[in-house]
C-alpha cells in the first residue's frame, strides 16, 4: 500500500487507529494478511476511509467481532480491514416504542445488557454474542434457536445507516416498525456480507423480556421418532420459541443420551408449565423417553451443537430445507459420511428447516478429495428437496473444489447487477459472496 494512502487514512482516523505489520495478526484469514487494519471512530470517519479506498481502488473488508471472518470464498488479497469496534454506542432506546438504535460495532451482548435494564430485548440469539457485533450479525444474518418464534435479523431490522462503496452515507428504513416508504434497504443489507455497503448504525424492533423461559430435552431411541414428534408439535397448539433436533453425537455434547428433541417455551409461568407437560405427553406418544429441563447456559450452545460434538471439527455446513425434510437429511447425510469412512454430527432448528452438520476432526491428513466428496453429497441431498447448502467452515484447499455458496440460479444474475450498480468498482469484500460477487 502506498505510504501516501496510509498517511491519508491515518489523518482521517488518527494514527493509533491504523494497525500495520505484526499488529495485523488477529486479522489474518486463511493465510491472507491485509495491508492495514483501520478503526474509524465515527460514521464520518468510516465514510472518509471508504472514500479513500474507493479512490485508490483498494478492497475493503468490514470487520465486526471477526466471528465470521473465514466464511465465504477467499477474498481478493490486499486492501484494508475496516474495523467497527470503536462505533459501539447505544444511540437510542425508547421502551414505549419498543425500538432501539445502536452503532454497528456494539456487541450483541452489550446491546442486550443495555436493553435488559428496561425489561426488553432484541429477539436475536446468535452464537458468540460476546464477540459478534450488531453490524456483523446483520451482515451475515446470524441467528440462533429462538428464530423459530421470533424470526431473524431480516424480521427485526427496521432502519439502518450504511456507508456506500463510494463513501456516501445513506439511510434506509426508519425508526418506526411499519414503514413502506421507498425500497426495503434493510432487507437488501441483511445477509449481504458487507458486499453492498458497510453498516454503521442500525435500528431494531424490541420485545418485552418474557416472564419465564425453559428448555426441555427429550431423548429418543431413534432420530426418526424425534422427527415425528416435531411434525406433531408443529401441527398442534403449542407455541415453542425453539425446536431443536439433535442426533446422538450432537446430543451427547449437550448431555443428552442419544438423539434428542430440545424445545424451548417462554411466557407466563403457567404457560410454560402447561406447554412442557403437553410436550412430554406428545413426545411420549412418539416414543420419547423422560424429558428434563436443561440449564440456561445450554441456550448459547445450541447454535453450534453440531460442531461442538468434535474437539475441532474439520468442516461444517449449514442447510436450508423444508421442515418436513429435516430428519431425513440428518439421517441420510450421516449415512453419506459414513459411506466415506467419516463421522459427522447433526443438529437442526427443525421448525424452520435449518440444519447444521459437522465432520469429525479425525480425518487423516485433511484429504480434500474425501471431504469434498462428502460435502458435495450433502449439498446434493439438500438440493434434491429444493433447498441449498452453505459451507460455513472448511480448509482452504477444499474451497477450490467445493463452492462455499450454493448456485443461485438465474437470480444470481440479478445479484450481479445489484452489485454492479452499488459497488461498481468492486471494492467491498470482492469475490467473497454468492455468484462470485
Amino acid at each position, binding site marked *: 500500500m502506498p505510504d501516501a494512502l496510509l498517511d491519508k487514512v491515518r489523518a482521517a482516523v488518527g494514527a493509533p487507529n491504523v494497525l500495520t505489520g505484526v499488529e495485523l495478526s488477529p486479522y489474518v484469514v486463511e493465510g491472507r494478511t491485509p495491508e492495514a487494519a483501520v478503526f474509524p471512530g465515527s460514521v464520518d470517519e468510516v465514510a472518509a476511509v471508504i472514500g479513500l479506498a474507493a479512490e485508490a481502488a483498494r478492497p475493503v473488508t468490514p470487520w465486526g467481532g471477526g466471528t465470521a471472518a473465514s466464511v465465504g470464498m477467499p477474498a481478493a488479497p490486499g486492501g484494508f480491514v475496516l474495523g467497527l469496534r470503536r462505533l459501539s454506542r447505544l444511540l437510542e432506546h*425508547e*421502551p*414505549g*416504542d*419498543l425500538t432501539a438504535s445502536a452503532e454497528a460495532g456494539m456487541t450483541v451482548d452489550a446491546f442486550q445488557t443495555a436493553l435488559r435494564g428496561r425489561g426488553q430485548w432484541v429477539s436475536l440469539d446468535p452464537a458468540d454474542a460476546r464477540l459478534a457485533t450488531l453490524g456483523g450479525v446483520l451482515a451475515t*444474518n446470524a441467528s440462533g434457536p429462538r428464530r423459530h418464534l421470533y424470526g431473524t435479523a*431480516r*424480521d427485526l431490522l427496521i432502519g439502518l445507516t450504511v456507508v*456506500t462503496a463510494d463513501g*456516501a*452515507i*445513506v*439511510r*434506509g428504513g426508519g*425508526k*418506526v*416498525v*411499519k*414503514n*413502506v*416508504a*421507498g*425500497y*426495503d*434497504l434493510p*432487507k*437488501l443489507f*441483511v*445477509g*449481504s456480507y458487507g458486499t453492498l455497503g458497510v453498516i454503521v448504525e442500525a435500528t431494531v424492533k424490541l*420485545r*418485552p423480556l418474557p416472564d419465564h423461559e425453559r428448555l426441555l430435552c427429550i431423548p429418543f431411541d431413534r432420530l426418526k421418532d424425534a422427527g415425528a414428534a416435531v411434525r406433531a408439535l*408443529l401441527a398442534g*397448539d*403449542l*407455541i415453542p420459541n425453539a425446536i431443536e433436533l439433535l442426533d446422538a453425537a450432537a446430543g451427547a455434547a449437550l448431555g443428552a443420551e442419544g438423539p434428542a428433541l430440545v424445545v424451548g417455551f417462554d*411466557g*407466563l409461568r*403457567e*404457560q410454560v408449565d*402447561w406447554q412442557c407437560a403437553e410436550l412430554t405427553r406428545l413426545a411420549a406418544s412418539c416414543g420419547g423417553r423422560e424429558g428434563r429441563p436443561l440449564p440456561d447456559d445450554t441456550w448459547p450452545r445450541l447454535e453450534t451443537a453440531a460442531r461442538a460434538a468434535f474437539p475441532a471439527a474439520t468442516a461444517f455446513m449449514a442447510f436450508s430445507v*423444508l*421442515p*418436513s425434510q429435516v430428519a431425513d437429511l440428518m439421517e441420510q447425510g450421516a449415512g453419506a459420511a459414513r459411506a466415506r469412512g467419516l463421522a459427522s454430527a447433526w443438529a437442526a432448528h427443525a421448525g424452520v*428447516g*435449518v440444519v447444521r452438520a459437522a465432520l469429525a476432526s479425525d480425518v487423516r491428513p485433511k484429504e480434500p478429495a474425501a471431504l469434498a466428496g462428502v460435502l458435495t453429497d450433502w449439498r446434493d441431498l439438500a438440493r434434491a428437496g*429444493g*433447498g441449498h447448502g452453505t459451507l460455513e467452515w472448511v480448509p482452504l484447499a477444499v474451497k477450490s473444489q467445493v463452492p462455499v*455458496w450454493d448456485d*443461485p440460479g*438465474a*437470480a444470481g444474475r*440479478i*445479484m450481479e*447487477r445489484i452489485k454492479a*450498480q*452499488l459497488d461498481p468498482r468492486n471494492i467491498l469484500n470482492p469475490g467473497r*459472496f*454468492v455468484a462470485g*460477487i
Partner: protein
Amino acid sequence: MATLTASAKRDLRHELEAIVGPGAVLSDPDELLVYESDGLTLFRALADFVLFPTSVEHVAAIVKLANREKLPFVARGAGTGLSGGCLPAEGGIVISLMRMNRVLEVDYDNQIAVVEPGLVNLHLSWKVGPHGYYYAPDPSSQQACTIGGNIANNSGGPHTLKYGVTTNHVLGLEVVMPDGEIVWLGGKTRDANGYDLAGVFVGSEGTFGIATKIVVRILKKPQAVKTVLAVFDEIDRASEAVSAVIGRGLVPAAMEMIDHLTIQAVEDAFGCGYPRDADAALLIELDGLTVGMEPQAERIVAACREAGAREIRTAKNEAERLLLWKGRKSAFGAYGRISPAYMVMDGVIPRTKLPYVLHRVNEIVAAAGLRVGNVFHAGDGNLHPNLLYDPRKPGDEARVVAAGAEIMKVCAEVGGSISGEHGIGLEKSDFMPFIFSAADLAFMHRLKGAFNPTGLCNPGKIFPTKKSCGEAGAVAYRPHPIEEKGLAQRF
C-alpha cells in the same frame, strides 16, 4: 410517453390478442375509462390497453412486447390501492392479474402455500381455514385486495403489531422481470441464498417486475382469542393507554383506535355496538394459548383503566368479535355516509408521540376549516387521519391537499415516516425528500437500475418527478394532475 397512432394501436391489439386471447384485451376508450383510477379517484390516467393474462408465459410475452415497443406497463390487482400505485401514469399497458387467482398448492406440514397474485387476500385464509390455518397479514381491504397488491405495497393491517407485515410472510416469488425474463426470487425455504431478493422485491410497488407466483407462510390459528373494546372520554387518554399497555410488557395481537367522528359513521353504516358518545375507543385483541389468556387480558384492562378508560367491554363470542372488527375494517367506506368526500393520510410515528401528533393534526385540520376522522393502527403508530371535505365547495380540495402536506411534515419531524402501508405510489412521491436525503434517493435509484434499467416497469412512482433528485435518464417534468386542475402548487 408513448403516443400510439390508431393503426399502431390496431396492430398491437392483434398481437396482444394472439398472446392472451381475444376476450382478454381491452382497448376501447369506454372500457379503459374504469381503469383510470385505483382506490383514489383524485388521480386518473388512461392506459392504451388493459390485458388479462392467465399464465406467467402470457405475462412474460406481454412484457417482452412492451420492451420491444418501448411501452410502459404496470400490473394491477383489485385496484383498491390508496396511492395511485397501479395507474398507468405514462399510458401504455395495464396488466390485470385478476384472472390469475388460484391457490396452486398448500403444504400444511411445512405451513406454506403457493398462490397466484390475483387471489383475494381473505380467500386464502378461507381456503386454509377449515384445516385450522390462516394467512396473517390482514389489511382492512382484505375482502377485496389481492396478494399481488399486498406484495407491491408490503401491506400491513391491524394484526401486524404482533405478526409483522407481508414481507415477514413471504418466502419466495416467481417474477417476470422488467425485461421479460422469468426468475425465482427466494423459494420455499426460510433462508435466502445470497441477497434477499424476495425481501427487496416486496414493497417495491411494482417497479421491479411482476410477481406471478408467491410462496407465503400460513400460520396455525391461535388456540384462543380475546377482543376488548376500551372506551374513553378523551382521545388523549386513549393514546396514553396504548403506551401503557406496551409498558406492561404486553404485545397484543392488535390495537386499533377509532375516534368519535368515525364511530358515528360506522354506527350509521353497520351498528356494530360502538358507543356513540365516546371520544375514542381502542379495539384490542389478544391471541395465543388459552392458558394465561385471562391474566394477560387483566393486565390490559388494568392498563386501560389506569389510563382513564370509562368502560371496557369484552366480545363474548365469535359473532360479537367479528362485528367489532367489521366496524373497524369498514370505517373508510363508512365515511361516505357523513361526508361527500375524504382524503386518507397514511403516516407513521413512534407510538410514544401519538398524543402530540394527534393534537397537531387537529390543529392543522381546524386551521384549514375541515373535519378529521381518525381510525388507525395505534399499536404500531400507523395513523390514518381522514380529512373530510366537500369537493363542490370551492377551495376545499386545495385546503385538504395543503393540510395533508403539513401532517406529513409533522410525521417526519417526530422521527416517523410518510407511509406505513399504503405505499408512496403517485400520491406521495414528492414527499420523499421529507424523510430521505438526496444520497438516499440516489442509492435507491441505483438499486432500481439493477431491476428496471429501461424504466418501463411502472414509471412515475415512488421517486419525486422533479429532476433534482439526480435521476439518470431524465424524465421530463410533468405537472401533477392536481396541479393541472389548479388545485395545488409545488412548495
